[in-house]
């Protein structure tokens, strides 16, 4: 086993939490039953790494096999960016695999590609980049996730050199016309996927939200009464219409880049300037949509919810550029092209 493979394996074992190590190795299925039995998971990580290295030497595993292990352990520490593909023809899996591998290998020599299809219709691609002079660098791979029947592609940590090559290979192999950055990023792949495909409880506007009030009475105590229950229910309804009900997908941030004119009557010097005032507003949270919904239903954010906030789930974006738009309604939203 060469050095790269050893280093990759060491890094992997370090990153996988001890509880998950056993299940991950079982899923990998490159160790024989006897070898799996001989691993004692109560030892320290260092001892486990040594043991695993010895076993892999025995089995003569190469970097390619270790890469499989990494793919199984989907890393949730990276940020996923999502892109849209346009003008589709539907493409079948094996065709896509061959085309993608051949296109990318044509574009850049020494690239190591691994494609795997998961049970939930997602195709995972792991790419280790090298160039004409060096071997593929397995320590900094790029992951690409594509759901075959949808126009969505999710990438992790693309650099500016690799993106155009990757985009071209993807467009050609999926037979779409173009690929565009869609301004949505987050730490959990499942969360941004659920947000895009609207896999959370949607609430639709209705004139009579609770028709069967007699059946649904949840009064805690007859002596306690809420004076403003009606307006509280209204706010809650509007917040849920804007953001959805139940558990919401976990987004971590929303960034608004403002290029609007400064407006504050008390500050004449700034207001008199002609050029727009540029600033960036960032909302960050462990679960951003949940916090926005709570701020709307508790009255901190005024209801009906402003389109600035409700576009996050509606359009499925979390990067906005806001500009003034002449004499018409000011601060309209324009998607930015990155």
């Amino acid at each position, binding site marked *: 086993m060469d050095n790269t493979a050893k280093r990759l394996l060491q890094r992997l074992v370090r990153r996988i939490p001890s509880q998950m190590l056993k299940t991950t190795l079982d899923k990998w299925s490159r160790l024989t039953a006897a070898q799996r039995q001989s691993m004692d998971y109560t030892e320290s990580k260092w001892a486990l790494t040594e043991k695993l290295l010895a076993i892999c030497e025995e089995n003569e595993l190469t970097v390619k096999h270790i890469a499989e292990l990494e793919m199984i352990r989907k890393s949730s520490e990276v940020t996923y960016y999502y892109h849209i593909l346009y003008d589709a023809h539907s493409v079948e899996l094996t065709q896509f695999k061959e085309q993608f591998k051949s296109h990318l290998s044509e574009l850049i020599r020494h690239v190591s590609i691994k494609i795997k299809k998961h049970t939930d219709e997602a195709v995972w691609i792991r790419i280790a980049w090298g160039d004409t002079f060096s071997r593929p660098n397995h320590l900094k791979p790029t992951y690409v996730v594509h759901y075959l029947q949808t126009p969505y592609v999710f990438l992790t940590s693309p650099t500016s050199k690799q993106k155009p090559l990757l985009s071209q290979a993807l467009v050609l192999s999926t037979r779409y016309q173009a690929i565009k950055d869609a301004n949505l990023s987050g730490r959990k792949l499942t969360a941004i996927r659920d947000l895009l495909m609207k896999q959370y409880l949607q609430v639709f506007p209705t004139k009579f939200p609770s028709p069967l009030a007699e059946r649904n009475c949840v009064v*805690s*105590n007859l*002596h*306690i*009464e*809420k*004076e*403003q229950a*009606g*307006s*509280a229910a209204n706010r809650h309804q509007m917040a849920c219409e804007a953001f959805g009900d139940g558990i919401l997908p976990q987004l971590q941030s929303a960034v608004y880049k403002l290029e609007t004119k400064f407006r504050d009557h008390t500050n004449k010097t700034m207001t008199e300037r002609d050029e727009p005032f540029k600033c960036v507003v960032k909302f960050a949270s462990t679960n951003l949509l949940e916090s926005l919904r709570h701020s709307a239903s*508790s*009255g*901190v954010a005024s209801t009906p919810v402003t389109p600035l906030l409700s576009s996050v789930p509606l359009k499925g974006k979390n990067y906005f550029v806001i500009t003034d738009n002449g004499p018409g309604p000011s601060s309209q939203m324009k998607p930015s092209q990155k």
Partner: protein
Amino acid sequence: MSLLKPFSKLPGLNTANILLVESEEQFQQSLADALVEETSVTVNVRLAKSLPLPMENDESRPRIDLVVFIINLTSELSFQSAEASLKYLDPGYFLGKVCFMVTNARNASSPAERLDAVRKLASSLHCPLLFAEDQTPDGVASATERLLTILKVAAGLVPIATALYVSNLTRCTLPLDIDLPSFD
């Protein structure tokens, strides 16, 4: 203007009605659950986010004996909402039927100026200022006890004591050096 009036309705027998006004609607719920457990008196609790109260409930609302404004010192919005609600109370309430309750006074993120502002507000209106701890059940229980003491007097259920008399003893007073900077 829809003022809340203190003596426009008849009182109930052995009943005390309290109105808890809190912009965040958190502490008032746990206080309400503890208040209704009082056995010697029937306590009815009304919860509101701010005043004025909706007109639709005017008919069914009983006579409110005590109005408590709960202010969270870590939030400016909480203080401003309470201040804005004060003008919807009939002046008759300020003769011992209004009380201020403040939470998170020991929190590092609450500025000292806000507590001073609440103190000045409470003393200018001759109202008591209570400090409460809302995170533990013990804190909620002790806040409930203190509120019940004032509530029983305000509802007229304690012989010889009236709300105005007691408020003279319990009202918030300003320390003489309130406007000097503090050394922390």
